[in-house]
């Protein structure tokens, strides 16, 4: 009996040390440095496989294990839902307003704050808007240059829905996957990019 009482604490110590090392020093330091604030809750630090992979600067730069990259793109591709009734398009004017807004999803926003597409933050779209970012490529003449074949339409929908399906560590948010925009809002953005009447294609 005496031997047993000595063994049990030893096992417990061994178990607790192996548990502690499962969480790295960095993870501990990182998660203890934040607090939930409003809608910005702590689970936002829980990474999915894509975020984990792209938090490595080597992978982010497009290097690293190509098989893992391919698997991540495949998994993201599988999340894409095509729009109900095959309806890909809405109103480019509403799309422009969505592209202009960079609001939403911060701790100073409310749960019912309408989240914007934030498109102009990173992309040139309508040339008339000079206040555009340069992290993403220019989308000026997007439809005029590509046409609106079924392949182009489906790719564009997919790219907006989940950009990581085509480039594992794209800087672009996964807008449909994370429900930043709903299906109808995405249709409006599709029209901004592809409608021959949209100012983008003049």
């Amino acid at each position, binding site marked *: 009996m005496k031997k047993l009482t000595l063994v049990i604490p030893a096992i417990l110590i061994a178990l607790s040390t192996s548990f502690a090392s499962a969480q790295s*020093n*960095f993870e501990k*330091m*990182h998660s*203890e*440095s*934040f*607090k*939930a*604030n409003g809608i*910005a*809750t*702590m689970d*936002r*630090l*829980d*990474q999915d496989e*894509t*975020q*984990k992979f*792209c*938090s*490595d*600067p080597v992978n*982010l730069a497009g290097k690293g294990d190509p098989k893992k990259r391919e698997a991540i793109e495949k998994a993201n591709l599988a999340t894409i839902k095509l729009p109900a009734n095959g309806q890909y398009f809405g109103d480019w004017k509403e799309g422009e307003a969505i592209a202009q807004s960079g609001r939403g*999803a*911060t*701790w*100073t926003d409310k749960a019912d704050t309408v989240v914007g597409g934030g498109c*102009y*933050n*990173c992309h040139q779209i309508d040339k008339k808007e*000079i*206040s*555009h*970012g*340069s*992290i993403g490529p220019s989308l000026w003449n997007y439809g005029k240059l590509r046409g609106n074949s079924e392949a182009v339409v489906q790719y564009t929908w997919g790219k907006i829905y989940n950009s*990581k399906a085509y480039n594992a560590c794209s*800087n672009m*948010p*996964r807008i449909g996957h*994370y429900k*930043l925009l709903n299906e109808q809002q995405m249709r409006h953005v599709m029209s901004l990019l592809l409608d021959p009447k949209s100012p983008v294609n003049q």
Partner: protein
Amino acid sequence: MTRLKSIFLASLSLIAGLAMAQSATDEIAKYREMIADGNPAELYEAAGEEIWKQPMGPKNATLEKCDLGKGPGIVKGAAAELPRYFKDTNKVQDLESRIITCMEKLQGYDAKEIINAGFEKGKRKDVEAIVAYVVTHSKGMKINVPNKHPKEKEMYEMGKKAFYFQGGPMDFSCASCHGENNKRIRLQDLPNLTEQKGAALGFGYWPAYRVSSGNFWTMQRRLNDCYRQQRFPEPIYISDVTIALSVYMGVNAKGGEMNTPGLKR
């Protein structure tokens, strides 16, 4: 002080005009030139100097014996070498966490109260003014954040990991905006903080008087708002991740110039 007030009032009307300006980068450059020797941060600096020298707190002491890394009471050049490791706390500390250590030890204030107060609230407001005072005394000096002590090296590596850590509903990390050269959000230029030149542009111009919000922002506040826009939960004031990021930027920026307090959009 009256000179400072008149500068401040003149700045206010300029700020109002600026808010409507289209080409923000050009306008800010013009604005910087116009008030080249009258950054509104001077108001905070003057207040900070008074607070530094005035006995206060439960122990009714001044901060004049506060050791910011270059010895008790030495303010000149201190901000150019922070964050750094401090033996007495056995921690790597940035300017703000070090000021709070001094307020706690020398004056008897409760550090937790300052950490839990918001920006510009309660005793935190005094910390911010002191920051303005201290950083002004490193203006024109070379950035020289140390990376020798094992804890400094550890914090640098933590900072690098935090910089690349993706999370939240938009998959953002610091690197999403600050990992490449010549990028912009809207019209705002984004320095590449992974390289010396860009890191010096970031580290060397913060803390700063911020024109669009009309107040003085410390480095802690700058990082806090980056994380807000990253859609992360809120970083706790002077938490390890904020200090680690300052170490990462400061070490990367080595040799660049301190232009603090800066003047920002």
